[in-house]
């Protein structure tokens, strides 16, 4: 993979209030994010050359190819419109699709939108249709899949169960504290380490407070070329590098404790961004963490600590709010998971951090941020690095 093409900036972000949003229809919800992003960027739809949209498989909300249903809310009339979806990593994939568009020179300003309205359907029922019915009929349920990965990781590195349990509880406490600082987060509550460690088992080793919620919500981001960004935006954020990697369909075909698609996506993004020591050089990370234990695996595979040692680093506070590299100050996926939007929210929060616009979530002086998402049956990973300087 080569270098990026033209420089690409983030010139605006917008999100809905996330949570249970029975108060509005699905297009109403998407419109909320669109209004927010144009207000943030101070431009109008007339300035936009193209639109990218994504969500989970359409039966999630019972309307197939819902970019048709959303066309009016997306302001897609008379514009090129692309749909991209890669399961949980959709939010990052739509961002990267928009970035390709601007980097290629074929568009100067692209509107990227992700959304989900999980309360309208049965999310696990939709996810049960992701594994095939012939060879994996009994496989399904996101908590099962990712708990299996977590147990594999603990077994592979011979990690003490109690130590992993404590570290995962710290991740949960930190994320919930972050959620309390995020007015848009779905879950806003204080939890203690003891509550997390003693919560009901959902899919061992994962307990109730190790699991993300099912959220309704949307996120929109405007990407622009360097020339446009400099004209329009006082303080743009810049795309410094990005990577995406896939793996084989069957999870058992590779070792998920040393997750090659995370490692590959991160290394590609770091190379483009000129990052050689990510824990020291990054100021903040927004990691796609629907399950606490999985975040531990991701910290390792994103190169933020050595393989098998994430629990030690977490227990030492390295990734806590006052630590060397704060992770998920927004509360992360653990406090909000409107899946099609989730990976894009990570990027939006990264951009807000490096432009000093993160409000109560702000990591002091953040200049370089990682955003990440993963998806499929432990199959896809995406990383996009956002910085304050071109």
């Amino acid at each position, binding site marked *: 993979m080569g270098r990026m093409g033209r420089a690409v900036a983030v010139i605006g972000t917008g999100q809905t209030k996330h949570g249970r949003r*029975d*108060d*509005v229809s699905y297009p109403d919800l998407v419109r909320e994010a669109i209004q927010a992003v144009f207000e943030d960027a101070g431009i109008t739809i007339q300035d936009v050359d193209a639109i990218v949209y994504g969500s989970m498989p359409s*039966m999630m909300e*019972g309307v197939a190819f819902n970019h048709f249903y959303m066309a009016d809310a997306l302001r897609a009339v008379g514009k090129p419109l692309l749909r991209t979806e890669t399961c949980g990593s959709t939010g990052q994939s739509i961002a990267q699709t928009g970035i390709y568009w601007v980097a290629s020179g074929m568009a100067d300003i692209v509107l990227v939108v992700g959304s989900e309205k999980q309360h309208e359907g*049965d999310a*696990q*029922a939709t996810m*049960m249709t992701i594994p*095939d*019915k*012939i*060879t*994996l*009929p*009994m*496989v*399904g*349920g996101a*908590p*099962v899949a990712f*708990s*299996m*990965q977590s*147990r*594999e990781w*603990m*077994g*592979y590195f011979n990690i003490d169960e109690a130590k992993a349990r404590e570290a995962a509880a710290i991740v949960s406490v930190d994320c919930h504290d972050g959620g309390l600082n995020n007015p848009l987060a779905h879950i806003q509550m204080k939890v203690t380490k003891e509550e997390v460690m003693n919560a*009901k*088992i*959902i*899919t*061992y*080793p*994962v307990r109730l407070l190790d699991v993300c919620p099912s959220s309704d919500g949307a996120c929109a981001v405007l990407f622009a070329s360097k020339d446009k960004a400099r004209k329009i935006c006082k303080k743009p954020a810049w795309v410094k590098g990005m990577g995406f990697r896939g793996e*084989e*369909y*069957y*999870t*058992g*075909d590779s070792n998920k404790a040393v997750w090659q698609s995370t490692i590959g996506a991160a290394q590609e993004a770091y190379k483009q961004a000129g990052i050689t020591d990510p824990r020291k050089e990054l100021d903040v990370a927004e990691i796609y963490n629907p399950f606490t234990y999985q975040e531990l695996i991701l910290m390792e595979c994103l190169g933020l600590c050595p393989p098998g040692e994430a629990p030690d680093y977490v227990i030492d506070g390295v990734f806590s709010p006052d630590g060397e590299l704060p992770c998920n100050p927004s509360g992360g996926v653990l406090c909000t998971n409107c899946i099609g939007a989730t990976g894009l929210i990570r990027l939006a929060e990264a951009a807000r951090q490096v432009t000093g616009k993160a409000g109560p979530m702000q990591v002091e002086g953040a200049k370089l941020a990682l955003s990440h998402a993963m998806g499929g049956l432990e199959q896809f990973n995406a990383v996009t690095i956002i910085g304050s300087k071109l």
Partner: protein
Amino acid sequence: MNKRNEKPRTLKSVLRVPYEMAQGPAWTHFFEGFKQKKILGTKCNECGRVLIPARPFCPRCFEPMEEWVEVAQEGTIVTWSYVNYTYFGVTADMIPQVPVTVKLDGTDCGWWGGLIGGFDVKNFDLVNEKVKVGGRIKAVWRDKVEGNMYDIDHWEIIK
């Protein structure tokens, strides 16, 4: 926004869609093996790996996998979980259950698709004591096999 004091409505709807999915030559033969209570893998002539479930082609080399190998019905636990919540297709009477990924002897991959059984798997402490990553299990077939993924009733812990 809503000035009329009307509680926004919801509409209930159900999708039910029938399918008939072609299993192709490889999966057809794989499940014919199940009818004789045999587990048949395919071997890649390029990289030499034996994979379960059988594959029509190697996912890494892209070569056809036409050599069939009967593999052991015993193997090593790669990972497991203890499922203690209900979700679509998994009802209250089915939990707790213990899904497992096993690396069968003579294969080069983990295989997820079955449940540990043969003892009181509803007892978490007992499960956590008996089921270990690296532990050994063997397939226990249903009496009446039909040539599908449900033919292996469960995986039993062995010494």
